[in-house]
């Protein structure tokens, strides 16, 4: 549980940096639908930044699916990032 919270926070931190927003404006369930800055370009940028930060690589199938903070975190967990 501790690890998951930390992963959520780290992901949120990268998100805030890439979207140019405050972390406090990104709730736990933030998604592409609820966040206007989360356009397709920011989406790619975010995924590349996360790949670099966590030393992993998302597949072409995963990339378009990672459209909310919980979905991103669950993919990261599947990749063994903790």
């Amino acid at each position, binding site marked *: 549980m501790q690890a998951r919270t930390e992963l959520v926070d780290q992901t949120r931190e990268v998100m805030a940096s*890439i979207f140019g927003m405050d972390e406090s404006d990104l709730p736990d369930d933030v998604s592409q639908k609820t966040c206007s800055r989360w356009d397709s370009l920011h989406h790619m940028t975010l995924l590349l930044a996360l790949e670099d930060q966590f030393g992993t690589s998302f597949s072409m199938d995963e990339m378009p699916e990672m459209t909310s903070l919980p979905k991103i975190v669950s993919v990261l967990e599947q990749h063994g990032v903790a």
Partner: protein
Amino acid sequence: MKLWQEANSLTVGVVRVNASVIDWIRELVGEQAAASGTLAEAVMVDSEMRGELALLAGKTLLNRGSLEQAAELLAEAGKHLVDPARKAELAGQLLALAKAWTKRQDVTDRSTREEKALRGAAEASSVQALPALAQYFQRHKRLPEAIEQWREAIRLGPQEANHYLNLGRVYEQSGQPQEALAVYLDLMEVAPTARNYLVVAQRLDGLASALPEARPDQTVKIALLGSGTLDHLQSYLKVECYRAGLRPRMYQCGFDQYMQDILNPQSELYAFAPDGVICAVHASRLFPRIHHYPFDMPVEERRADMEEGLGTVQTLLDTLTQRSSALVLLHNMVAPQHPALGIQDWRDELGQTEMFAQINARLAEMVRTRYKNVYLVDEDRVQARAGKARATDPRLWLTARMGWSDAVLPGLAREYLRYLKPYKALSRKCIVVDLDRTLWGGVVGEDGMGGIQLGPDAPGNAFVAFQRELERLWRRGVLLAISTKNNEEDVLPVFEQHPNMVLKLSHFAARRINWDSKAANICDIARELNIGLDSLVFLDDNPVERAEVRAKVPQVLTVELPTDPAYYRDALLELDVFDTLALTEEDRRRNQLYAEQKARRDFEAAQETSFGSLEAYLAELQIAIEIDLANDQTLPRIAQLTNKTNQFNLTTRRYTEAQIGEMQAGGAQVYGARVTDRFGDNGLVGVAIVMPQTETSGTWDIDTLLLSCRVMGRGVETALLAFLADQARQSGIDRLRGWYLPTAKNSPVKDCYQRHGFSMVERRLDGAELWELVLSERAVAAPSWLVVRTPPALVA
């Protein structure tokens, strides 16, 4: 005390239920406990033990939710614990305590308690707890304290990217955008990772409007045109511009809209009026069939397709260069990694690899012979250096049409800067080197000339290779200078006698062989060579010397030389700070020029006493100045001078060859002045550009008046102004006008117009001054000590 006893009994209670903890405490307490028989008594006499128990008790109380008591016990533990591992554990507990306080809505002074816990944690383990403390200050808008803590956190953990990003954010919040920028750039030095490029690019966007307006010579407008998604390339380029000291403004064409942007005269591209245009069009767009399956085509068709693609490029460049005088950086084509016919490719007549080689050769030829302002960016080589297998990522191409991976983007962005830096006069001109352990292995003062490492075998051959590379730069026009803590009598014989020295004393334009501070010596060298500190690069194996120079003269580029001399040469090759846009005759001859300059100085020193006046001395120099209109041979040098001259430059306007060409077409007269003296030819060192004033007839505006610093103080400017006055009079012009636009560097010419009898007619708030000379009222005469020659055609 009551609490303390309570804690002791509590701890004993806890340890009773956990046999392994009891063993652990026994081990720590040892004989003493055994002798006294009770745990508590042992605790009273051993401070470290007291700390251990307080920590254990505090932890238990914290888990139970008795925060106040836990705080007291953990504070007690902090007074006693010494062991780093225990202190780290204590810090962890205090951090947990701080977090627990934030959730206690019922406690009114919870934030004071949180701060106290965090401060205690930071005291127990700074590395662990400083970020939390800094964040606490940040959250409570206590920005100066947050800055202080983040700076300390960075000092302790210089590799932690998030510390920099947080510190930068706090600086932004506290209205210090320049400090924020400096922190982001520090981060890029420490950790130039993909994430940091992308995040910092984002931060820089937010920062741009808050930063004070940049000087014109520090700004650059860049347009990115191409056939794929260019956003990430733009992010990387933006970061690299800031790292090079430039403030970029960027334009990017719509997806795959490069053709429309160039061909439509009303396009946003032209409205943006770029200084630089980057054309990154993929081979599959320009040469689609050749790129996919050329083996289906007869040879004639392959040729026809090549010509067609090259024709398209030429049309685009013709149009672009007619409508814009910007510097154009055209990507060459990257040959496919896997030739279409496999190993048969080279046996096939005009196979795919061969076609790409020919296309690239033809592009280079086109750019060289047809355009003054177009340069070829060798993307094929940039990708090869990054590793072609990693340079592209099919996922990014297939999902987002991104043509480059993060493995190649930094290299590509830096490659553009190699053109933009000389364009903005940011190239370095001189390398100052140390000697011992830098030019050769060992210490000559101790090991003797025979004992230093320098020769055909390792490790001496690393130093030979390094010297060869320095010599190669010297041949390209880069100046070399020595700064070493040594005795001349130890060092000079190495240059004169050592058989494997590549560099001789004659390669060095200046040398400081003494025991003074290197920073002072470097400033001295810059003065002697009459170049700015920001033109210097410093190479020294000694980190202490490097730190001193970096701290005292940050304008100098101090290179982190690798510890292994085997990599010295690579470090030099990687610098990419010496590029010029044109290799002029003056570049090739620069070293000779400086040798002559040295002879002049020696002459000056020798004659100082024997000449009655400065004029007599100048007359003895036998200065001759030759002034002529710009032509194809002199134009590159004239453009180069407008871009690199800082001190003697009245207006510091930077022009490309194409822009000067446009000005000529608009009626401007562009003059170059060549200066010779008894010691040799200084080359083309002066430029004057005059424009007939359109509003007031009978007036010429002096758009540009500049001199290379190497001929300052000899009356050359007077001769130039006298010449301009002459030309004006012959054309029926009565008035010469010129601006003095102050910069950080051109104060030497502040009184130039005044000295020549001009009077000031306007002064703006920014210090710009407009000066005017009425020719019928005042004359300018060339100094008596120099001879002025002009081609007959110019003398009416």
